[in-house]
């Protein structure tokens, strides 16, 4: 198993931490992982993205030209990363704020109304966990118990009281993800 994914959105949406939780969950399932953030000037421009690779074997390049999955949370990221998804790969996005929806027919496209759902459930801080849940539903590469372990490892202990809420958010995402194409 080797999954190369890019998560991209606005700074503050929890893009980097979602990637981190995913990577830690990979370690909990004895996988090799690499987490590579954008940390340059684009961070100051308001968009953030992270490359996460989870694999059974040693990971070679942390720099990708193509990805298996793109998780897209704003329009700029849609424009940039839709073309990067491998044929037959997955594009998962939150339609909130998206004007130009994905047009490719050679990939699987799924949507999750994560912003809307997390707001309605009064757990907007767990927005990124709703997205994570949606992703894990479509691509069940990791056991849920390992994801919860990864979450525990990623969060400082003072926030461990928030784990049940994050778990709910993951389940919410799992239930509401829709296949578009």
């Amino acid at each position, binding site marked *: 198993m080797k999954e190369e994914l890019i998560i991209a959105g606005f700074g503050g949406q929890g893009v980097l931490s979602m990637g981190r939780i995913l*990577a*830690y969950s990979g370690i909990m399932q004895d996988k090799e*992982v690499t*987490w590579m*953030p954008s940390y*340059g000037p684009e961070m100051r421009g308001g968009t953030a993205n992270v490359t996460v690779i989870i694999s059974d074997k040693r990971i*070679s*390049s*942390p720099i990708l030209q193509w990805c298996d999955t793109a998780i897209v949370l704003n329009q700029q990221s849609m424009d940039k990363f839709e073309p990067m998804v491998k044929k037959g790969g997955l594009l998962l996005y939150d339609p909130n704020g998206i004007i130009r929806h994905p047009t490719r027919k050679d990939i699987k496209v799924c949507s999750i109304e994560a912003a809307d759902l997390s707001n309605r459930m009064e757990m907007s801080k767990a927005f990124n966990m709703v997205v994570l849940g949606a992703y894990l539903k479509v691509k069940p590469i990791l056991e849920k118990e390992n994801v919860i372990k990864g979450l525990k*490892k990623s969060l400082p202990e003072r926030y461990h009281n928030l784990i049940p809420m994050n778990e709910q958010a993951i389940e919410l995402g799992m239930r509401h993800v829709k296949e578009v194409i």
Partner: protein
Amino acid sequence: MAEKLLKKGNEAIALAAIRYGADGYFGYPITPQSEVMETLMEEMPWETTGMVVLQAESETSSINMLYGGACCGKKVMTSSSSPGISLMCEGLSYMAGAELPCLVVNVIRGGPGLGTIQPAQGDYFQAVKGGGHGDYKIIVLAPASVQEMYDFVGLGFDLAFKYRIPTMILSDGAIGQMMEKVELRDPVKRLTDEEIVEKYGDWATVGKPATRNGNIISSLSLAASEMEAINLRLQEKYKTIEENEIRFEKLMCDDADYMLVAFGSSARICESTVEIAREKGIRLGLLRPITLFPFPTPVIQKMTPQLKGIMSVELNSGQMVEDVRLAVNGAVPVEFYGRMGGSIFSPEEVFKAFAEKFKL
């Protein structure tokens, strides 16, 4: 089983320093390596191992604090990124001259000048050929993963003390900022003054016993004949290091017709390029120098007869390629592919360049 953590390369450096019994860290913040000192400050090792962590007023100051600490036989280190390392080069030359051990971490960013905060490998010449003045060398280790960032702290200190020489970990913004799985090694205790003498000899200025004369540590020797003798001794030491300390990794080289040479993050990218080439039936291998000084010249020379061509792949304008060409000495074509100023190539891009250069 040892604990496995998800850490950035920079964080791994800090954790390794504490666990390897480092006595002191002196540094000044600069992107993309600020997490080294941030992590040290968070960990507060002065309360556990007694390790000193100090933010100096500048890089010049940091390296001179290393000089002082190293004179006392202490395991001292600093980290910085390219412009900061330039400021430290005077101190590195002094420490090489005075034969002092220390560990310097350079998490390279794009240059020249203040440049950019994105990863690059433009400081190869500075690290390997001597950024400071005079005929000196330092040992240079090039990690390609977060685990190696961790492990090379211990290795770097060991080599530095074994040969009484400054040692550098030459990394870059990609490896520094990237998170991967790190397995922590068993902690090593800091040494007492007595243990320092016992382990490394009595050159350090840890207090003069009645049984010997005082130790004087200096890089100044005004008489030309004395200075030449010191130089000859240094050159002898560098030769010993070249004979004994070459480290490298070979990937798919046994049956290779062509070979890429790349270090650090470039080597990681080239690993994927090798996979792409192999899928197309091209027998491509990768040599990853782990020590940049000593450079794996004999390894390249041994490989050369089976090869039709070599390409050096670097995030600079072509620096290590000079050492590859010296090793090959015209026996086979040596090409170069690189990008600069913080731009990174993808595995596919490297493959395209390789196929074009060798008309495959």
